[in-house]
């Protein structure tokens, strides 16, 4: 019997609050009446709750002791990553506000499920125990399986939901199996105690298998190659709004979990998992860059792009140093805003009220929608890692950590692949700026997309201004992460 006290509740207040609000929203959804009006209200309440939780998280930032008997830790690291996850989710919800006429998305369940997934993601970031790790992953995954299949009359959407579910279940199974082996060896599910149990012992193959299984299961979640196969199909088939969410928040949560596991529980045996991460990183960078070249659908292209981005983030993680963790955090910060900015435009790719998400549909965008084209131009150059935009600084810090850890070949492969990647980002710019079209996309930019794009643009363009304070926050977060091991 575990007894709770205020010392347990306070650190977890944001999650507790959001869970409570989710329950309230169930009632609102059930009794608030039919139709789009109610769905809108649910979304607005959900957004409001995220703002409150954001304030709670930033207030509770750092210095908190592990709660619930070490199951949950709210340190500087979790604070940093949670802010990113919440911003990403908030942007995705905001952009769903203006979807009049889309009866699939305009359901109260939509925002409700996403709010629940958010709680799962935040718990993933704070998980400090194999048990809470698994529960958090499931809490995050199940609502997302449902929203992927939200377009009930679309075969593609159902297919996406099913694929996501099956492969997600497979990866959860791998994770669970790996966790059981790790537990069997270490005799504890607590990350700190696992780390202590590993110190100075010979590691039997069974444990290594367990560790690799766990890392592989998480690689599924961040869609690192070779566990990436589901990503393009799910990105393409899901409603674009859902794709926007998938591309941002769950990635941050999963990579945070990966960081906590590798730096925390397996912190003392970096030489064992480094090889695995290097392999994942190289495979993701190569497959992401080469795979994207052949794509004709922008959502599929963004899927490959996100695979490549995860490869870069993993390059920082593979360094296994606090600087590597810092690099990953800087990288993911830029990634969240680049993703939100890009999807705020991709969401508007509609012609005659139907989604038009082929890449060639962007032809001539600079003529018909100059501001959107400019926005996407900045996002694409940033994703290609061209300075002085946000994407460049992320690459600078992850490769800095990689070179520092002696992984020069990894860094060289990474930068060369970023040149290959630049090719397909440039292709989008070419279509928008160098070519003309007779069939423009639908006019009109909803205010929410404009705000999301505007904020993302400011962050991406002026990343270098705030970099100093960002580095400080990331540094203390990285210290907290390493100390937790």
């Amino acid at each position, binding site marked *: 019997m575990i007894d709770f006290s205020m010392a347990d509740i306070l650190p977890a207040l944001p999650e507790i609050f959001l869970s409570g609000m989710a329950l309230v929203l169930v009632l609102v959804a059930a009794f608030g009446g039919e139709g789009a009006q109610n769905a809108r209200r649910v979304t607005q309440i959900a957004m409001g709750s995220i703002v409150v939780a954001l304030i709670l998280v930033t207030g509770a930032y750092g210095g908190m002791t592990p709660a619930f008997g070490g199951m949950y830790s709210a340190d500087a690291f979790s604070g940093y990553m949670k802010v990113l996850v919440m911003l990403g989710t908030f942007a995705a919800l905001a952009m769903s506000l203006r979807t009049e006429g889309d009866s699939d998305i305009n359901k109260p369940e939509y925002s409700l499920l996403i709010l629940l997934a958010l709680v799962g993601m935040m718990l993933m970031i704070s998980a400090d125990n194999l048990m809470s790790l698994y529960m958090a992953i499931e809490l995050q995954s199940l609502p997302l399986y449902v929203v992927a299949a939200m377009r009930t009359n679309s075969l593609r959407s159902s297919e996406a939901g099913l694929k996501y579910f099956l492969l997600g279940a497979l990866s959860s199974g791998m994770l669970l199996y790996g966790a059981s082996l790790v537990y069997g060896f270490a005799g504890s599910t607590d990350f700190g105690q696992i780390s202590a149990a590993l110190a100075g012992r010979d590691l039997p193959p069974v444990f290594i298998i367990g560790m690799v299984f766990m890392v592989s299961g998480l690689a599924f979640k961040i869609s690192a190659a070779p566990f990436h196969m589901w990503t393009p199909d799910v990105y393409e088939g899901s409603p674009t709004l859902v794709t926007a969410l998938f591309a941002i928040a769950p990635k941050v949560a999963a990579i945070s979990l990966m960081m906590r596991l590798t730096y925390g529980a397996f912190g003392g045996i970096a030489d064992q998992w480094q090889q695995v991460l290097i392999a994942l990183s190289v495979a993701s960078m190569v497959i992401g860059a080469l795979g994207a070249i052949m794509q004709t659908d922008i959502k599929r292209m963004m899927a490959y792009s996100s695979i490549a981005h995860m490869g870069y983030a993993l390059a920082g993680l593979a360094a296994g140093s606090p600087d590597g963790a810092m690099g990953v955090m800087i990288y993911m910060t830029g990634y969240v805003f680049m993703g939100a900015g890009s999807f705020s435009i991709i969401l508007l790719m509609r012609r005659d009220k139907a989604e038009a998400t082929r890449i060639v549909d962007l032809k001539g965008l600079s003529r018909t929608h100059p501001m959107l084209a400019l926005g996407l131009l900045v996002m694409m150059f940033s994703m290609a890692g061209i300075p*002085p935009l946000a994407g460049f600084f992320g690459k600078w810090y992850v490769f800095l950590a990689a*070179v520092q850890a002696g992984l020069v070949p990894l*860094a060289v492969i990474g930068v*060369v692949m970023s*040149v290959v990647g*630049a*090719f397909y980002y440039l292709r989008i*710019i070419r279509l928008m*700026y160098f070519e003309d079209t007779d069939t423009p996309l639908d006019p009109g930019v909803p205010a929410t997309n404009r705000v999301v794009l505007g904020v993302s643009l400011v962050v991406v363009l002026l990343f270098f201004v705030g970099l100093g304070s960002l580095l*400080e926050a990331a540094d203390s977060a990285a210290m907290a992460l390493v100390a937790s091991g």
Partner: protein
Amino acid sequence: MIENWPLLTIITFLPMIGVLFLLMIRGDEASVTRNARHVALWVSGFTFIISLALVFGFDSTSSGYQFEENRAWLPAVGISYHLGVDGISMPFILLSTLLSPLAILASWKAITHRVREYMIAFLVLETMMIGMFASLDMLMFYLFFEGVLIPMFLIIGVWGGGRRVYAAFKFFLYTLLGSVLMLVCMLAMYLDAGTTDIPALTAHSFAAGVQTWLFIGFLASFAVKVPMWPVHTWLPDAHVEAPTAGSMILAGVLLKMGGYGFIRFSLPMFPLASEMFAPLIFALSIIAIVYTSLVALAQSDMKKLIAYSSVAHMGFVTIGIFTLTEQGVAGAMFQMISHGLVSAALFFCVGVVYDRLHTRDISAYGGVAAVMPRYAVFFMFMMLASVGLPGTSGFVGEMLVLVGAWKASSWVAFFTATGLVLGATYMLWLYRRVMFGTIESADVGAMERISRREVLIFAPLTVLVLWFGIYPASLLDVMANSILAVLDNAASGGAMVIAGR
């Protein structure tokens, strides 16, 4: 009073203020176009006038950095906002601020669609160029160095000729591939020295084995920029497809970024590797000079011919730099400034007739001198400056490089000199085919004489080419102390590493 102004920051970011103005222009298409042209011209002209303060305030007896600004940017990791100029970078900043308004003036009539976006791209380009030459922090240098790609990619791709997409992609990807390898080396340098401050890195001595790798990485980037044979193939494509003003800036300033990089980074920071790789650089440069001169002879497209001649001329620059002698480096510097002025003028020469006849094919012309006498004078002057006629700036640079090359090796000097002969051949032949002879086509006969705007672009370039040709000391004195400091540093740095082993 005025000493305390952050002069370099003002010069660097003034064009960005112009960008803000351009973004704010409202109204109908015609007035936006008109206003955009004027805003861009005024802002870049004003930037040039302010940059003159660098010339007048410059102390050429000092070899150190002047107009320094050093503010904390990322204090925790030893990266700062550090600007400053010495005798090596100051002339390049002036070159950039001079050519920018001239290029904008050159596109006054030639660019008729999306003028506002065009001007924005040009002003961003100007900021990037100035910032790159003014940076005294390696990370900042890289930001500006790479940032140049964005506006140039758009200038070639949106306002270029028929194969502009191919040319823009080739330009971008080629340059990016070179630069990212340099980036990895920069990371290694930062980790080795613990700072990205350029003066501190210059004082730091890298181990001999490390130097070799770093040199190769930097070579990958700068060789593409210069461009050196065999990675020069992007240049003819980019030049042919870029609009006239884009070619002017590309040849005038962007090619110099490679040469500047060699002098700023490779020589003082990797002295041992520089000495070791000098024969390789000589070989590549000689091939560039002889081979591209021959290729230039075979061209039927005027712009392509001048593009190949640029590769050959930049071959002189790389030879001069790696002679590691005072004359050689000074000659390379002089040649870069001179080539910046002359090649910009030559590309504008092509632009002038292209605007009238819409072809760059040499065979379409002939007898132009009879129709456009004043143009013929300007063209001839620039052509002779390119060939290296005594009395023009071209002569001084080439002669100094030859002196330096002679010191290094008489064979290098011999092959370099053949470049002069070949250069004279293709330029004079080009001039004869375009300007002399009988007027074959009625279109040529109907060409208008050059306008006052066009004279206004030629005039400052002509005056400067003549001035530097007659009185080269005015430029050499500015550079001399800084060049000596670089070479001293290279010599002592090399000695230190050897002593340390």
